Structures are given as structure tokens and as C-alpha cells.
């Protein structure tokens, strides 16, 4: 097995400037992150807002330039040439909100045609290919002439997936692809992604804050906290036996619907009768106070 995507010591620092434009510090949005995804596998990046998960996606897509570190795609270093067309063919992205990632003034067919035209797909074959792509995401051919506002959220996200598949990519970055959808629609979209991944031998980078979803979709998982990966490993191992306090807090916070799941969640010590914040919990742990025993349990 070889790695489809390899992220090596990737960092992105944003300068903080004062009112006069002088740099007064920096925010380490992504700080020395390394991981790799094997061909045909799903790697999950879990994290909350401010964890840097979206910045990592943007760097892989070439929308943001890394401060340091390398991104290797299929063994080739692409850190320098992101945004070029040969590269765009191999990596595609499905955005979080299908409502805003599809242009409201363009029909579904026109949206799907964008990558086809950009990568020199013959014009004579365009209509056939659009229908074929819609079929792949289980949408009828007549959807090509519809506008996004005539579609439901799930249908829009299927169109976004069809668009990402248009130029036969090898890696697809999924940035919270179902967080804007209802749970029953989410299940169907995830079904579709699993099927497509299997049929087309796709590799997925799955970015989400929904740990239950991640447990069922990703084989490997990395937990991001303040720009760093604090814990990584096979999903089952990380979820059943979390080592880092932040992972434990995240797992403990998931609202669940069964007793088995509830039993699986780690027990987090309360501070003044309240669930602690991540900072509080980590500070408590570092201080090695009497409560740290309870965290061990």
C-alpha cells in the first residue's frame, strides 16, 4: 500500500497586525501537522472551530499557501504548484454548504460543466458526461436544467459531488459535507459516498466535527486541537480507548441515542458542577491536581 496523500510537517501561521499594519504576533492556525492517507482509504480529521481543520483543507486545495511543510500527492510534492490544472484534476473538494458552493445563477448542468471545460473535456461529449455524472449521484438527467434553489439540500450536495467527480479525481476532500443536511438525508449522502469510493477507488479526506459520523466512515482518524494533531490512529482504537484528554472531552460531549453509546463515552470530572472547557481540563491535567486521578478512570 502506498500513500495517496502525505502531509509532512505542515504549518500555517497568520500574522496579527495592529492598527498601523505592524506585525505584533502570529496565530498558529496549523502547527506542524503530519499525516498520510493510503490509497482507497478514508482519513478523518476531527476538530472544533479554530482547530485548523479548514485551513488544512484550503492548503491541500491550493486556496491558501502553507508557511512551511510539504504536501505530497501520489508521491509527488505539490506544495509549489497548487492551483495548476494538472493538479486540480487529481484533487477535488466537496464544500460544507451546498447552498453556497453552487452558483445560484447557474444551472446544475452549467455548474458541472465548469471542471469539464477547464480540463479540456471535448465539448461534443459534454452533455453525455453531465448525464452520466448525474446518474452516478442518482439524480435524473433533467436536473441538468434546474437551478440550485429548485433543489433540496441533499440534491444540491449530490450535484456538488457530481461536480467533484467530473474530472475523475483520485483524492476528494470532504469538508463537513453533511453538516447542513437533515439526518435522514445525511445517511443517504454518506451511503452514496461510500459506494462511490468503492466503485471509483477514491481516497477521502473527511473533515468533520461529528464524531459519530466519523466513527462510521473513516478508517483512520486524527484529532486536531489548536492547530495540532493531539491523537491519531485507527478510528476504533481512538474511540474505544482515547489517550488524550481533549479526545476524551470531545467524545464525552457527543449527544448519543443509546445506553451502549453512553457507556462508551469517557467520564469527565466536573468543575464546580459544570463540564469543563478544553483549556480548563488540560490545565487541570498539567497541574496534576487531585482530580487528575478521576480523569484516568
Amino acid at each position, binding site marked *: 500500500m502506498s500513500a495517496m496523500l502525505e502531509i509532512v510537517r505542515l504549518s500555517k501561521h497568520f500574522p496579527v497586525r495592529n492598527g498601523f499594519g505592524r506585525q505584533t504576533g502570529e496565530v498558529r492556525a496549523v502547527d506542524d501537522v503530519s499525516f498520510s492517507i493510503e490509497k482507497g482509504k478514508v482519513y478523518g480529521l476531527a476538530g472544533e472551530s479554530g482547530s485548523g481543520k479548514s485551513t488544512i483543507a484550503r492548503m491541500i*486545495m*491550493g*486556496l491558501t499557501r502553507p508557511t512551511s511543510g510539504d504536501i505530497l500527492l501520489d508521491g509527488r510534492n505539490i506544495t509549489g504548484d497548487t*492551483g495548476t*490544472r494538472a493538479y*486540480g*484534476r487529481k*484533487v*477535488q*473538494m466537496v*464544500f*460544507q*454548504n451546498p447552498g*453556497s*458552493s*453552487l*452558483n*445560484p*445563477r*447557474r444551472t446544475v448542468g*452549467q455548474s458541472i460543466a*465548469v*471542471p469539464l*471545460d*477547464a*480540463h479540456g473535456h471535448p465539448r461534443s461529449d459534454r452533455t453525455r458526461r453531465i448525464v452520466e455524472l448525474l446518474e452516478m449521484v442518482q439524480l435524473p438527467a433533467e436536473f441538468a436544467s434546474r*437551478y440550485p434553489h*429548485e433543489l*433540496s439540500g441533499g440534491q444540491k450536495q449530490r450535484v*456538488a459531488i457530481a*461536480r467533484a467527480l*467530473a*474530472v475523475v479525481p483520485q483524492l476528494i476532500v470532504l469538508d463537513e459535507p453533511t453538516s447542513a443536511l437533515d439526518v435522514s438525508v445525511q445517511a443517504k449522502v454518506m451511503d452514496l459516498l461510500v459506494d462511490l469510493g468503492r466503485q471509483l477507488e477514491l481516497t477521502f479526506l473527511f473533515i468533520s466535527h461529528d464524531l459519530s459520523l466519523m466513527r462510521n466512515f473513516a478508517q483512520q482518524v486524527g484529532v486536531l486541537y489548536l492547530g495540532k494533531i493531539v491523537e491519531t490512529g485507527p478510528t476504533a482504537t481512538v474511540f474505544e480507548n482515547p489517550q488524550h484528554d481533549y479526545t476524551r472531552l470531545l467524545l464525552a460531549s457527543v449527544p448519543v441515542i443509546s445506553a451502549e453509546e453512553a457507556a462508551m463515552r469517557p467520564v469527565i470530572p466536573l468543575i464546580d458542577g459544570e463540564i469543563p472547557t478544553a483549556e480548563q481540563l488540560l490545565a487541570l491535567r498539567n497541574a496534576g491536581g487531585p482530580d487528575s486521578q478521576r480523569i484516568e478512570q
Partner: protein
Amino acid sequence: MASETVSAAPPRRLSNAYQNWYRFSRNPTAVIGAAIVILSILAAILAPWITPHPDHVGAVVNFRARHLSPSAEYWFGTDNVGRDIFTRVIFGLRISLLLALVVLGTAIPIGVTLGLLAGYFGGWVEIVIMRLTDVALAIPPLVMALAVAAVLSPDLINSMLAIAALWWTWHTRLIYSITRQLRTQEFVEAAETLGASKFHILFREILPNCVSALAVKTSLDCGFVILVGASLSFLGLGIQPPTPDLGTMVASGSAFLPDYWWESVLPGCAILFVALGFNLLGDGLRDLFDVQEVR
């Protein structure tokens, strides 16, 4: 989840065009404005066939019929050389509408392109274009037209050029602000990651989203351009006699106020009518598209 109330209603069966038409038809301002505009355009196009005295457009002199007050034969009365004012007003609309067409036809493509470039690329492109815009905005169009007329010759073409040379700035500003908002939208980023060209992103992704604001702005602008054009003619910088022009007619008729009031007041009403039509249409469209204040 405010959207659920909307999705509960069955909008899918209604076509886009029908929904827009429905909202448009419930908006009296827009309907009246559109009616006035369509009526004016039709009248201007069909002028030779619908006016009672099409020959009065030229240098016809009929002193026996001069200064006649409005009547069944001469609806708007006659002027100091006995020509039918109604006929000349209808023909005058042609000049006003032509002026609007030429000025906006030049200003919009230039203004929109510059606005898109400044908003999307930012950096020095933005600095150069927007500072240029600021400078141009500081010059009143009328003053510019006076200056051009003084240097070149006082005719319609030069006046149009002078107004167009400044008018694009408004469109640049409008499109610039919309583009800046849209630049960070996911669908623009998605197009970038899909490998779309800059041309495609500017004109196929961003521009269609500016159309509603542009339509509102353009219809309001038509009214303004017609007023500016009339002012120029009034000052003798527009079209030269004997070709009928609303501004010129107001100016020449004003010499006979108040006795022969119709000679200046009725052409003035025609200017008011057309400008009002475009403004009502613009306001109506704004309600329809629900765009923010564009001026």
C-alpha cells in the same frame, strides 16, 4: 431553521419566471414604471407613423399657425414657427432615449469590467482602479460636458462622450462592492478549485450574480442620463436645431412664458414623464430583487 416554513409550501411546481412575474405584477410602482418606459420606447420607435405632423420635425415654417394653444388638431399646441409640439415631443423622445442608450451602453461594459477586476484581484489592481474612480467621481458630469463642449464643438456626440466618460464610475463602485462580497463565497472558491479560468470566474460565476443590482441601477440611471441630457440641450450644448429635442424645446419655449406656456411646460412634462417612468421601474425592480440601496 427558518427555511422550513418555505420548504413546507410547494414552490417547486412554480417556475422561476412565474414567481418573478407574480411578484412583479403585485408591485404597482414597477408595473406603472414599466408601462411608461415601454410606451415611451414604442412611441419613439414608431414616431414617423403615429405622429399627426411628421413633416414638422424639420425646418417647416407656417406662420399662420404659430403660437396656437393646445387643441384637437394640435394636442400640445404649436411653437413660434407654427410646428406641432406634440409631434416634436415624440420625436424628441428619440434623442433622449438614444442618449441614454449610448451613454449607458458605453459606461456599463467599462464600469462593470473594471469593477469586477478591482473587486476580484484586489491589491494594486484595486488601488489603481478605485483611485481613478474616486477622481472621476469628483467631477460633476455637467461641468465635464461643458468643458468638452468648450474644447471640441457643442454637439450631441461630444456631450454623450463627456457624460459616458464619467458615468462608468458608478457602475465600477457598485460591481466592485458586490464582487468583494462574492469573492470569498464558496461557489467562487469551488470554481477555483475546479480549475476554472479567471475569465470564467469573473464573467460566468460572479457577473450573473450582479445582474439584479445592475438592472435596478441601470433603470434609475436612464432617468438621470435623460435629465442630464435635457439640461445640456437647455444650455445649448446638445443637439442643434431644427432636430427636435426636449431640452432645446424647453429652452426656446421659455422665451414665450407665461403667455404661450405650453411651448416649454409640455416638453418639460415629457421629460418628467420619461424620467419618472425609469425611476419607478428602478424602484420596483429593487423591491422585486430585494437588493440593497444601490446609489
